[in-house]
């Protein structure tokens, strides 16, 4: 008699029986009331009280005969017919232990934010209709993955779909450019699984991205990224992790090609990294820059107040007219290739002025010259270990970057200014090489953790922050992409996180969630973020009109602390031991005593290191002999009449023989 609703329901089910993506998993019905009306952007539905398949983040489809509205659950409510707690109190005689004879009916209602409506036009409020759990096909449609999943899709996680797990893809055109780019991960340390998430996504990119790509990771904290090429400790991963890897088509393995770079400690022989266990230290390349490398970045390394227009003019003059040239000062020929040479050049210039009683030299004032000399000559002392006073240069393989390779640069133990220099110069070089198409790969991902430290929302405007801003604003056209992470997104420069096309949130801090940046999230979503278990993330991606919750597996990569336990860092070696150990890389049979004697005979430590580095670069037949002959009789600032015995050009990269003048 009064049964139209039933009739229409059965019409709907026959309609859906014919379609593929809606299964029999009906879990609710759309409701619309005056208080909670449905719009084109959100709708409400109720479910049975016992339904365990729906929760915040669940993807659902409201399907009427003519439309399908895909939505994600963003809020849930439950209520009974009880209007006032007082009624309960009276009914139970004020005794909470008393049992009522009847359970009040409890209804579960959910609010879903619309992800997509079919047909898309005209945009109308979601109709009152049965609600189903989305299946694989439904998930793909809801997240608009159907348009890129098989072409530019990068699987990043799994959406828990009832008992099933459906892969969630993000679009490489929006992750790695050119449409949009960059990834930012936020969440509480140790719980948000930020580092692990980035590692897993990188592994997935290596597996699924169709073009060539390399990764430059800055290791900014302890041993975080120093064992990327080692599998996780046994028992770290469980069956679930392995299954998730296979569902996402990512091999459950560590990175295959990882190259490590670290500067020296101030002693210039021991590497300033925790990856110094004798078994591993061979795979770490020193990061050591000379005058050429640094002079481009004087703005970064000099105190800004020091470089007035006059000083700037002198530095520019040195760059253009002194470096890598043979010039004549006060009747004396000099070739400036390194900091030691530069010191000598300054000496000559100042002696010329003093002897000839000049107050200016080539329009540069004496005071300016003294000041610039003082600041520049300080650099190799201040950045000892990173900036080499001599011609030894060891750097990332510019022009020879390899596909599917991770370059880890360990800056964890550098002081902030030196970190600034490393970041700024490496990113500038990456940018420059990508611009000219000469890096060796077309795409590079730069990974920076602790972004709030390097690109804070407030605080001084550093070169590093400028550099990061530059990547985030222009990088996507060049193939230069930033993957960053931090605890508190609100503390990072707005434009940097704002330019991040894809954002991931792990377990979040409640105070952070209370900041204005999270206002768009419902309180249930915030609540969920504040209690998110390890291995679960919320993703925002341009194709998804609402944030989506996914799970991801523990990557099969050794965690930093486990690596340190298994491969404890070596003690710092004394100079003679370090020299012997380094030279024996060239020839394991060389005599320890012979090397020790040579070192003992030479009083100048810098000269020993210089000779060792030259020998290492040269790779001679007889390393000990080459080492001995590379040591100059007298080190330090050479007398003006003495010609430099060695003029090394570009660390031998142009094929010239560094020993040519011997």
């Amino acid at each position, binding site marked *: *008699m*009064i049964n*139209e609703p039933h009739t229409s329901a059965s019409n709907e089910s026959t309609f859906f029986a014919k379609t593929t993506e809606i299964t029999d998993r009906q879990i609710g019905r759309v409701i619309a009331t005056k208080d909670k009306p449905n719009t084109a952007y959100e709708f409400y539905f109720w479910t049975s009280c016992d339904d365990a398949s729906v929760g915040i983040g669940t993807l659902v489809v409201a399907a009427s005969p003519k439309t399908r509205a895909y939505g994600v659950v963003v809020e849930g409510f439950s209520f009974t*017919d*009880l*209007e*006032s707690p007082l*009624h*309960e109190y*009276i*009914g*139970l*005689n004020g005794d909470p232990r*008393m*049992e*009522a*004879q*009847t*359970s*009040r*009916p409890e209804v579960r209602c959910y609010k879903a934010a619309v992800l997509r409506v079919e047909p898309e036009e005209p945009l109308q409020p979601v109709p009152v209709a049965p609600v189903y759990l989305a299946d694989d096909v439904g998930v793909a449609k809801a997240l608009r993955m159907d348009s890129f999943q098989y072409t530019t899709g990068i699987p990043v996680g799994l959406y828990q779909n009832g008992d099933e797990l459906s892969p969630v893809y993000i679009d490489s055109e929006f992750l790695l450019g050119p449409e949009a780019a960059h990834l930012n991960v936020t969440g509480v340390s140790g719980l948000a699984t930020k580092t692990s998430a980035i590692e897993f996504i990188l592994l997935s990119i290596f597996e699924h991205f169709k073009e060539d790509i390399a990764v430059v990771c800055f290791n900014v904290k302890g041993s975080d990224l120093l064992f990327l090429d080692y599998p996780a400790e046994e028992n770290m991963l469980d069956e679930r992790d392995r299954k998730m890897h296979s569902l996402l088509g990512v091999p459950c393995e560590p990175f295959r090609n990882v190259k490590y770079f670290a500067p020296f400690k101030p002693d210039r022989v021991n590497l300033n990294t925790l990856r110094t266990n004798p078994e591993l230290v061979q795979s770490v390349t020193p990061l050591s820059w000379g005058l050429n490398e640094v002079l481009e970045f004087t703005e970064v390394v000099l105190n800004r107040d020091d470089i007035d227009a006059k000083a700037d003019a002198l530095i520019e003059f040195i760059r253009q007219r002194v470096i890598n040239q043979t010039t004549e000062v006060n009747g004396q020929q000099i070739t400036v290739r390194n900091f030691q040479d530069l010191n000598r050049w300054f000496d000559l210039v100042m002696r010329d002025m003093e002897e000839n009683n000049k107050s200016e030299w080539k329009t540069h004032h004496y005071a300016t010259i003294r000041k610039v000399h003082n600041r520049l000559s300080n650099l190799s002392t201040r950045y000892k270990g990173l900036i080499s006073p001599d011609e030894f240069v060891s750097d990332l393989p510019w022009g020879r970057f390899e596909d599917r390779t991770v370059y880890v640069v360990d800056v964890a133990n550098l002081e902030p200014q030196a970190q600034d220099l490393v970041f700024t110069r490496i990113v500038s070089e990456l940018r420059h090489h990508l611009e000219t198409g000469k890096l060796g790969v077309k795409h590079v991902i730069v990974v920076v953790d602790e972004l709030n430290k390097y690109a804070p929302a407030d605080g001084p405007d550093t070169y590093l922050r400028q550099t990061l801003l530059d990547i985030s604003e222009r990088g996507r056209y060049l193939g230069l992409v930033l993957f960053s992470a931090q605890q508190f997104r609100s503390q990072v420069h707005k434009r940097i996180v704002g330019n991040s096309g894809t954002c991931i949130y792990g377990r979040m801090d409640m105070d952070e969630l209370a900041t204005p940046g999270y206002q768009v999230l419902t309180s249930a979503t915030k609540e969920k973020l504040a209690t998110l278990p390890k291995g679960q993330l919320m993703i925002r991606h341009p194709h998804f009109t609402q944030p989506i919750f996914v799970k991801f597996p523990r990557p099969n990569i050794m965690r930093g602390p486990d690596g340190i336990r298994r491969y404890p860092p070596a003690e710092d070696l004394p100079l003679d031991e370090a020299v012997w150990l380094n030279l024996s890389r060239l020839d394991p049979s060389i005599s320890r005593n012979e090397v020790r004697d040579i070192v003992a005979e030479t009083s100048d430590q810098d000269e020993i290191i210089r000779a060792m580095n030259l020998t290492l670069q040269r790779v001679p037949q007889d390393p000990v002999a080459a080492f001995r002959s590379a040591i100059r009789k007298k080190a330090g600032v050479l007398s003006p009449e003495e010609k430099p015995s060695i003029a090394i050009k570009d660390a031998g990269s142009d094929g010239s023989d560094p020993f040519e003048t011997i």
Partner: protein
Amino acid sequence: MSKLLRKLASSIAHQADPQIHVVIGSEFSDEESPSLVPAVPQTASAEIVEPSGKIDPVPVGTPNTSGFSYFMDGMERRRLVMYISGIPVVYGYAAAGIRWRGADKRMYAHGDPSEREALFCPRRLLEQLFFDLDIDVVDIEDAGSALEDHPMIFLEAAKKKVSDIRSKLEAEVTSRWLAEFDGSNEWLLVDGSISGNYDQYPAPNIVGVVKSHQTQYFPIEDQRKIQALRVGERSGLFIPKGRNRPDVYSWYLRLWPNEGQDLHFGLVRVEAPKCDRTVRMVDEISRWLLAERAPLSMPDSRWDRMLYPIRDCEQFLRSRAPSKTVLDAILMRFAAGRG
């Protein structure tokens, strides 16, 4: 939705009878009080059957768990929808249904409720018009006794007929339940009086709770004792007289204290089949009813007498009944189609 009205609208919409006058937006009244309850206050007599021979209060003991698991209620709605040649035509809806309380203490529908919707009018005056239409029309005049030709008299008669139909549906639903559960340990609690027509069942498990006290069965001295009942006390057992249906046993029970309230606040009159078992179980049944006070049926205005599962039944029936808005809409379309 009312199928009946829609059918009516489409069948007579295009009849060129100028005498149809549609009434939109008139009240769609709900009869709240249970059937079998007199509309006006009256007195009647009673026969006390309590072994003591007195109506005096009897404590029933401490309530624990209720023995009821089925609950029955009925409802009716009626509304003047049109005049045809000056004769009022009333649309009426009546339903009765049973709800079941499971072991999980939740309420579930026990089968579909019985429903009926019909038009109520004096058939002799409108015979031709509804003739042939496949519509349920109830004659408000009993065979051989024509009413006076007065619209108000017709309306009163229609009201009575809708109530009769509701009573009939309630009786049907109750009989079906008895047929299904006779001999089991299940008990049915009904809203209002029980009819007592259970000849084939010697001791049916059925109890009625009457919330209104329109009929007073005792002289004032006894009535005072009833009014003075305290929570957990019942009156002596009696047989209400002056009913035109079989005898039942009855007693008064105080559910909530009436201090500062009306004298009848929290007072119900219980009816149970006239049999020895009722005499034995009167205290136990009273305790069951006291146990049913939680959960409270607030915000119902009659919460002091309305038991929660009965209210649940009522809500259930209401949720299925045609609403005023739906009727308005149909009638508006009907009127527009004619205009």
